[in-house]
């Protein structure tokens, strides 16, 4: 029996089956075509109201979601925590309930506390799409990364993917690991041992603290930003020391596979985790990730808004 989509929320890739992940990717492939034609819009979410509720700052993810919602013909409301009544002490749940009383249909939410979106999803009849919860999960970022890889290679199964950088504090890394492993990739996480602990082996990835070892056989290297806003202790001496030992430079590319993809979720710290020449070079698909992010988010919104919440 062919799989049908039944989820009203998208909180994390951890709970999705491989078939559900492929379902989203196939749906995204169709939505990518919408943005390539003259009329870049479909009426799918006409009359639906989506609230982008971002407690943590964002430009790229929020703009991508906002454009995805508009291309689905939804009405869009943006709520930023810094200018909301959260500042007056209103609880998160009260904020959501007040918005729900305005007959909105869907929340796209980013929060610094892991599990916040899961909590909200249990307390609202609206659908909830997780746009990032602390260092836990960022499902649409991983989905767009996987979509980009699949578009280039035609598959995920058997590919060697290295995620390079501050894995410990990265929701992008965690979501990528879950999604890639479910689809049969071999995943390496690499970086300084302070932010790439050995314990990660227990989730089925290879842990590597040497850059050359980590990337020499990789089909894909996904470079993560050093997230200063999450580092509340000293995990490495300085940005320049990080760049020396773990920065992806043209010299590093020389001992990688010629067709290996270079990815980055953005925003990039040029010449820290990745040099400009590599970020702008022919193996980089960083801008394609952005294009694909729009398609993936349109697909996710369409699917979760398309289902009745039980």
């Amino acid at each position, binding site marked *: 029996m062919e799989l049908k989509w039944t989820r009203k929320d998208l909180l994390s890739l951890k709970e999705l089956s491989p078939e559900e992940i492929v379902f989203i990717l196939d749906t995204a492939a*169709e939505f990518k075509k919408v943005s390539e*034609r003259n009329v870049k819009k479909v009426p799918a979410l006409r009359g639906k109201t989506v609230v982008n509720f971002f407690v943590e700052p964002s430009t790229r993810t929020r703009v991508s979601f906002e454009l995805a919602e508009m291309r689905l013909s939804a009405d869009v409301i943006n709520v930023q925590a810094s200018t909301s009544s959260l500042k007056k002490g209103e609880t998160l749940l009260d904020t959501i309930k007040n918005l729900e009383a305005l007959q909105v249909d869907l929340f796209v939410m980013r929060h610094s506390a892991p599990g916040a979106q899961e909590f909200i999803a249990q307390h609202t009849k609206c659908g909830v799409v997780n746009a990032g919860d602390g260092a836990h999960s960022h499902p649409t970022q991983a989905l767009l990364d996987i979509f980009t890889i699949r578009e280039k290679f035609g598959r995920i199964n058997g590919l060697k993917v290295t995620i390079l950088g501050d894995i410990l504090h990265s929701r992008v890394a965690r979501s990528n690991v879950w999604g890639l492993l479910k689809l049969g990739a071999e995943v390496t996480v690499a970086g300084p041992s302070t932010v790439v602990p050995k314990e990660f082996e227990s989730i089925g990835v290879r842990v590597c603290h040497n850059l050359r070892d980590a990337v020499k056989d990789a089909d894909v290297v996904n470079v993560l930003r050093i997230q200063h806003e999450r580092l509340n202790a000293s995990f490495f001496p300085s940005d320049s020391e990080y760049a020396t030992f773990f920065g992806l430079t043209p010299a590093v590319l020389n001992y990688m596979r010629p067709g290996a993809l270079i990815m980055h979720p953005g925003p990039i710290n040029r010449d820290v985790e990745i040099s400009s020449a590599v970020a702008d070079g022919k193996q980089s698909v960083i801008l394609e990730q952005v294009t694909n992010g729009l398609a993936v988010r349109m697909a996710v919104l369409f699917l979760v*808004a398309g289902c009745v919440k039980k």
Partner: protein
Amino acid sequence: MYDREVMFDSEAVNVAISHLADEIIAEFQAKRKCDFALVGLYRKGVPLAERLAQIIEERCGYKPCLGKLDISMYRDDIGTRSALPRIRETIIPFSVDKNNIVLVDDILSTGRTIRAALDAITDYGRPDRIRLAVLIDRKDGEFPIHADYVGIVANPPESVKLAAEFTPEDPTDAIYKMQW
């Protein structure tokens, strides 16, 4: 569970498809417009459109452009279903602007699929004309949508579901009726 029985066998289906092809050819040859495109609607409109294109090529010496359209993004019941089927691949490999489009579907019932298809195809461009070819017209429309070319008119009760099958993806050509 439901009972499934053959309503129209492969011979009847072939005669109906042939008749559809003749009607399409007749209109476009009369207008001296041999440039038109067939757009099959998922699921069974797609193999039907391919069959029609083949027959038209055999009879007229030219093959019309062929497209496939999934109308999931244009449905009027979004948000009401508990399970969503996969969206299939829409391929429109020709310009819709100033073109003659023949939408092809296996069964015309409520008309809602065709309403969605009209909205979808006109988002690809501004065609000169749109025509509708269906194998079976159930004559139980909920919208004022009518087919221009019809293979068979069949009007079973509302409780009877019809399903079409076409070779080569199915073992044989047939229209089945199913009743709970």
